[in-house]
């Protein structure tokens, strides 16, 4: 027994590993919380696009020499607002537009990165696949602050966000600012994606947004329990993934997402045929 405890505590003697664990759990928590809406409203593609835009923001920030969080946040928020504007203006089927614009921007980031690597020694690839061990103190501060903002906003505006996304027409008729609330959700999604990029990487942010929340949706019957269970699945997957990453020397992003996917497979196996699974798969996007 003490052997297991030692295994768990051993990495935490190092400051950078402790930071990494805290960062991973924070990211798992945040992603699952916002992910509830991503799963229910079919925003997965938008979340993915935001992560790619954030990457380009990071590259530009590196080349221009300012904080990469600033760069990523500016890019993702601009993209989030842009998507909000486009969906309200143009209406349906914005997938193609989002696909074109944001894979274009990501391609720009990749090309700029190639240029950047010639002049800078920073390994920008760690943002593509995630490197949680590279989290510095001030990164952790940024993740903590952003996380607190997202968490407090989602708790304070719980009923407004729920009504506005469950039944936008009636919510608007009753006097709720539905447009602003939908935009707010995109902003929260942007912030979450940005702080998650360093931990799990551009490619795997989507998995953290979708998988724990979807696992929770298999068993939860109400919104608060879906969010709470999602947070548990996300945070535990992040912690377990962190230890796997440390002991097996594999990328943290891959390890965390693999654990989250395993959770989903296990829960899906247990609840198979109980209706929840069918409901989730039938969910429209």
């Amino acid at each position, binding site marked *: 027994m003490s052997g297991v405890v030692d295994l768990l505590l051993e990495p935490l003697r190092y400051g950078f590993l402790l930071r990494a664990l805290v960062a991973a759990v924070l990211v798992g928590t945040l992603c699952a919380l916002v992910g509830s809406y991503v799963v*229910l*409203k079919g925003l997965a593609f938008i979340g993915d696009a935001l992560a790619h835009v954030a990457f380009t923001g990071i590259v530009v920030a590196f080349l221009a020499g300012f904080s990469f969080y600033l760069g990523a946040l500016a890019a993702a928020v601009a993209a989030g607002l842009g998507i909000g504007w486009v969906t309200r203006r143009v209406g349906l089927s914005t997938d193609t537009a989002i696909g074109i614009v944001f894979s274009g921007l990501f391609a720009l980031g990749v090309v700029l990165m190639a240029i950047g690597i010639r002049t800078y020694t920073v390994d920008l690839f760690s943002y593509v696949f995630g490197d949680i061990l590279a989290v510095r103190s001030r990164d952790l501060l940024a993740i903590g602050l952003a996380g607190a903002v997202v968490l407090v906003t989602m708790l*304070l*505006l*719980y*009923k*407004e966000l*729920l*009504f506005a*996304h*469950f*039944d*936008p*027409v*009636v*919510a*608007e*008729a*009753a*006097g*709720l600012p539905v447009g602003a609330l939908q935009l707010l959700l995109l902003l929260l999604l942007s912030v979450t994606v940005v702080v998650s990029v360093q931990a799990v990487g551009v490619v795997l942010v989507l998995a953290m947004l979708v998988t724990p929340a979807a696992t929770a*949706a298999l068993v*939860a*019957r*109400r*919104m608060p*329990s*879906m969010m709470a269970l999602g947070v548990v699945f996300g945070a535990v997957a992040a912690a377990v993934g962190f230890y796997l990453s440390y002991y097996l020397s594999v990328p943290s992003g891959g390890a965390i997402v693999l654990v989250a996917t395993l959770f989903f497979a296990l829960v899906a196996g247990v609840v198979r045929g109980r209706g929840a699974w069918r*409901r*989730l798969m*039938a*969910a*429209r996007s």
Partner: protein
Amino acid sequence: MQRGTAAPERAARAATALAITVEGLTTGYRRGEPILRGVSFAVERGSLVGVLGPNGSGKSTLFRSLLGLLPPWQGHVLVEGKPARPNPDIAYIPQRETIDWDFPVTVLDVTLMGRYPRLGLFRRSGKADRELALWVLEQVGMLAFRDRLIAELSGGQRQRVFLARALAQEPEIFLLDEPVSGVDAPTQHFVFELLERLCRQGKTALVATHDLSCVAQRFDRVLLLNHEVIAYGPPQEVFTETLLNRTFQSHLLLLRYGDRVIVVESEDGDERSC
């Protein structure tokens, strides 16, 4: 006698017996293509008003204007004497395709949403809200289903829940857009009974429906709408073959026995009775 700022407001309401005044309303979604043209009518408080017209005649557009979601291009829309704007005093039950059925929300959750606009920002629903929600669920016969997921209900049951949510909002005016289409017969009957009871208590209700016979029998006023107001008045005056056929641009036959009116569509003999 009355307290605080509510007193002058209540006095103003009492002074005007009109819940809704629409004058010369022209509006639509795209410039140059008005859906409603010069619509005028007034609804007295406590009336049950049927809004009749073919699909695409502007019934939903009229409701959006009354809710203040669609600004008038010309004319004005007054609700309780003030320009229409979204507010909790007017409850809307739309046609149902805009709802996200995948949400993990129970019957009680949905009913409680009716309280949200009354609570204000950041505040959570309390014990009194919960008691009211349970009471209205009992009124609509859905109390036993309070912990069911909304996705698990039949069409008629869902409609009862949306009625419960509207009731929980404690509005003065109800706008119902085709509340009985695709709903089982007992629920249809129940919806109209409930509306009659609400209107007797001084609430006002506008109901868009295709159920001509029901309107003829139960409603106080009928608005025949086809982009313009074809007629507005009590059903006995408005339900003439000429006016109905001008509204629906088809051949309807009216059969009357005693005070009952049955509308028959002459082409396919589709008969509806109430």
